[in-house]
C-alpha cells in the first residue's frame, strides 16, 4: 500500500523524508495516547483506522474525487460554511495545524510570539508535509484574529490559491450584513472554482448532510452526560477532529454507530472511567490533530473530560442550519443566521460565550472547567479572566491554562491539573 501512497505524496510535492518523520511521530503519539486507553468503545476502531490512514487512504479518496473533476477546498476555521462548499460539488477539509513543524523556517516569516496554531499551519506548508493543503484547489483564510489575518498576507506568498474571507467582529446588523455579503461572495467563488451553479436542491441536500454530521456529534455530547461517562474525552475529541477530514456521510454513520454502542454501555453502567470520576469541561482554543496534550494530561491524572467548548467541539457544531427554505436566497440567509451565532472570541463584546460555558458546564454535569488558552492567542486569553470570574462567582472551580504545542511544560501542567482535580474531589 505504502508504495502507491508514496507516489501520490510525491505527485503532491510532499517532502517524503520529512513526511515519514511526521507520520512516525504521529503514529507513536497515537499509540501512546489513544491506543493505551482502557475501556474504549469498539466503534472507536473506525477512528483508529481513519487516523492510521489520515494521510493515506483519505488522501487517495480525495485524489479520486479530483480525477472526476471535483474540487477540494481547505479551511482553517469553522466560519467557512461547508454547506456552500458541498452544494457547489466540492469537498471541504480542515487543514493541519496541531503540531510544531519546521519552526526555524516559520520564524523567518512570522514573529516568535505568534500562536502555535498559526505557526503550525505555516510549518506544514513550509515543511511540505500536509497532503490536504497540497491537494486543495482553494485555501480559505478568514479574517478572525489579528494573528491569522496578518499571517494570511504572508501565506499568500507561499500558495497560489488563497481566498481570504472577511468576517465581522461585532454582532450587529452591520456585522450580519458583512457576513451575508461575504458568504455570497464565497458562494460565487466556489461556483467559479467548480463550474457548478448552486441550486435550491443541491443547497438543501448540502444543509441536510452537514446537519446530519452535527446531529451525530450532538448525540455523542448528550450521551457524555451519563456517569460513568461512556466515552473518554480524548475519544470524543477525536470524533470532533475527524469531523473536519472525513467523508461526511461515512462520518455520520460511524458516529451514530458509536452512539448506539454508547447507549448500551450507559444501560450497562459501563464507562471509560469509573463512576464518580471528576468531570471536566474544556473551554477555549481549538485543538487540532494531533494536539492531544491537555486532554491526555487530564485523563491520565484522574479526571474525565465531558465536553469541549471549542471550535473543535461545541462551538463549531452546536447549531443546525434551518433547512426549511425553498430558494437559494432563503437557505443562504439560514446559513448566515446559523454561523452568526458562533460565539468566537473575535467578537466584541461576546457575552453569549460566557453564558454558553455556564450552560454547558451545567448540562454536561462538569465539576470544574479548564480554560485552555494557546500562548499569544489574545482573544481567548483576554476572555479567560472573565470566564474564570463568572464561573467562580457561580461556585464552579476554574483553572486557566496557557500553553503551546511543546512538551517542555508537561511536568508543571501535570502538577497544576492534578491539584485542580484534587480540588474537585
Amino acid at each position: 500500500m505504502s508504495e502507491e501512497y508514496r507516489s501520490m505524496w510525491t505527485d503532491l510535492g510532499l517532502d517524503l523524508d520529512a513526511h515519514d518523520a511526521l507520520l512516525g511521530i504521529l503514529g507513536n503519539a497515537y499509540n501512546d495516547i489513544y491506543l493505551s486507553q482502557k475501556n474504549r468503545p469498539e466503534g472507536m476502531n473506525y477512528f483508529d483506522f481513519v487516523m492510521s490512514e489520515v494521510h493515506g487512504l483519505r488522501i487517495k479518496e480525495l485524489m479520486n474525487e479530483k480525477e472526476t473533476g471535483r474540487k477540494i477546498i481547505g479551511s482553517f476555521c469553522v466560519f467557512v460554511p461547508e454547506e456552500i462548499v458541498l452544494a457547489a460539488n466540492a469537498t471541504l477539509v480542515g487543514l493541519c495545524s496541531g503540531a510544531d513543524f519546521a519552526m526555524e523556517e516559520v520564524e523567518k516569516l512570522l514573529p516568535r510570539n505568534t500562536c502555535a496554531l498559526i505557526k503550525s499551519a505555516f510549518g506544514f506548508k513550509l515543511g511540505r508535509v500536509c497532503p490536504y493543503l497540497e491537494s486543495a484547489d482553494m485555501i480559505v483564510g478568514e479574517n478572525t484574529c489579528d494573528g491569522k489575518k496578518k499571517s494570511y498576507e504572508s501565506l499568500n506568498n507561499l500558495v497560489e490559491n488563497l481566498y481570504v474571507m472577511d468576517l465581522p467582529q461585532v454582532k450587529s446588523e452591520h456585522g450580519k450584513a458583512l457576513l451575508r455579503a461575504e458568504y455570497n461572495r464565497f458562494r460565487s467563488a466556489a461556483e467559479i472554482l467548480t463550474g457548478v451553479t448552486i441550486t435550491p436542491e443541491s443547497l438543501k441536500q448540502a444543509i441536510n448532510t452537514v446537519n446530519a454530521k452535527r446531529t451525530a456529534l450532538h448525540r455523542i455530547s448528550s450521551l457524555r452526560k451519563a456517569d460513568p461517562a461512556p466515552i473518554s474525552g480524548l475519544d470524543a475529541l477525536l470524533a470532533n477532529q475527524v469531523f473536519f477530514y472525513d467523508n461526511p456521510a461515512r462520518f455520520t454513520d460511524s458516529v451514530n454507530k458509536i452512539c448506539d454502542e454508547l447507549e448500551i454501555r450507559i444501560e450497562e453502567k459501563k464507562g471509560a472511567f469509573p463512576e464518580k470520576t471528576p468531570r471536566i469541561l474544556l473551554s477555549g482554543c481549538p485543538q487540532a490533530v494531533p494536539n492531544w496534550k491537555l486532554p491526555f494530561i487530564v485523563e491520565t491524572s484522574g479526571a474525565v473530560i465531558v465536553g469541549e467548548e471549542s471550535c473543535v467541539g461545541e462551538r463549531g457544531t452546536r447549531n443546525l442550519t434551518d433547512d426549511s427554505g425553498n430558494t437559494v436566497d432563503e437557505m443562504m440567509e439560514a446559513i448566515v443566521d446559523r454561523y452568526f451565532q458562533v460565539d468566537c472570541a473575535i467578537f466584541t463584546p461576546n457575552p453569549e460565550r460566557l453564558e454558553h460555558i455556564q450552560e454547558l458546564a451545567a448540562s454536561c454535569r462538569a465539576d470544574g472547567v479548564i480554560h485552555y488558552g494557546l500562548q499569544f492567542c489574545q482573544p481567548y486569553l483576554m476572555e479567560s479572566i472573565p470566564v474564570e470570574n463568572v464561573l467562580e462567582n457561580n461556585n464552579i472551580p476554574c483553572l486557566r491554562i496557557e500553553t503551546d504545542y511543546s512538551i517542555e511544560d508537561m511536568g508543571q501542567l501535570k502538577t497544576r491539573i492534578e491539584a485542580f482535580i484534587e480540588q474537585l474531589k
Partner: protein
Amino acid sequence: MSTHFAGIDIGSRTIELVIVNETGDIVFSTQSDTGFDPMAEARKMINGVSYDRIMATGYGRNLFEMSFDAPTVTEIKAHARGARAFFPAALTVLDIGGQDSKAIALTANGKVKKFEMNDRCAAGTGKFLEIMAKTLGFSIEGFGLEALPAQRELNISSMCTVFAESEVTSLIAKGQNRREIARGLHASVIRRAAGMISRVSAEGDIVFTGGVANNPCMRLLLEEKLGRKVLCPNDPQMVGALGAALLAGEIK
C-alpha cells in the same frame, strides 16, 4: 505497636521524609539533597524506618509511585494540609521551593479553594535566589540576613534568572552596594509572590512554607508588601512531607 504514616517530599533540591503517629504528631523527620539519582536517595532515606503507609509528593512523586507503588498527592494539597497542622485556621499558604512557587487559598475546612503556580521557568523561586546569592558572593543560608540591614533596595527589573544575573553583574561593576542589590532581588521575588497571593486571596494571615520561608528578609518584605501577617512553621521545608504523611493517614 501503634500505626505510623510517612510522607516523602521529593523536590528539585531536597528530599524530606516525615513520619507521624496516629494522632498526627511528628515522630521522625529527616532531610537530604536530591542529588542526581532521587530514587536511590529516597530508598536510602526510607530504609530502616518503619511505617504502615507512605505517600509521596513533590516533583519526583510519580517516579516514586512507579518505584515503590505508593499513593501520591500534589505539592499543592500537601502544603495546604501541612500548613493546617501548624496553623489550624490558615486560609492562605505561600510555598516557595527550589524550582516553583505557589499561592494557595483554602476553604474554612482546609480544602484547596484556588491556587496559582508559576509556569515553566524558575523565576521567583529558590533557584533564582540561590544563583543571585552566588553572583553576589553570599551563601544561600546567609543571603537574607545580609540583605536585611541594607539602607535601600536597588531596583532589579528582570525576573528571568539569566537577565537578572547580568543586571546584577552590571550593578556590581558600577560599584553599587551588594547588600542593597541583594535587598532589591528579594523585593523583586516578593513582588511576584505578592501578585500570586492577591489573585487567590484578598486578606488574612499568610502561612509561608518551603525552603525560601527560612529567609528572614523574604518574610519581612512579604509582610511589608501586603500588610498581612506572615506565619512560618519552625521547619518550613518539612511542611510538604508532613502534609503527605497526614494525608497518608487519612486515606480511607
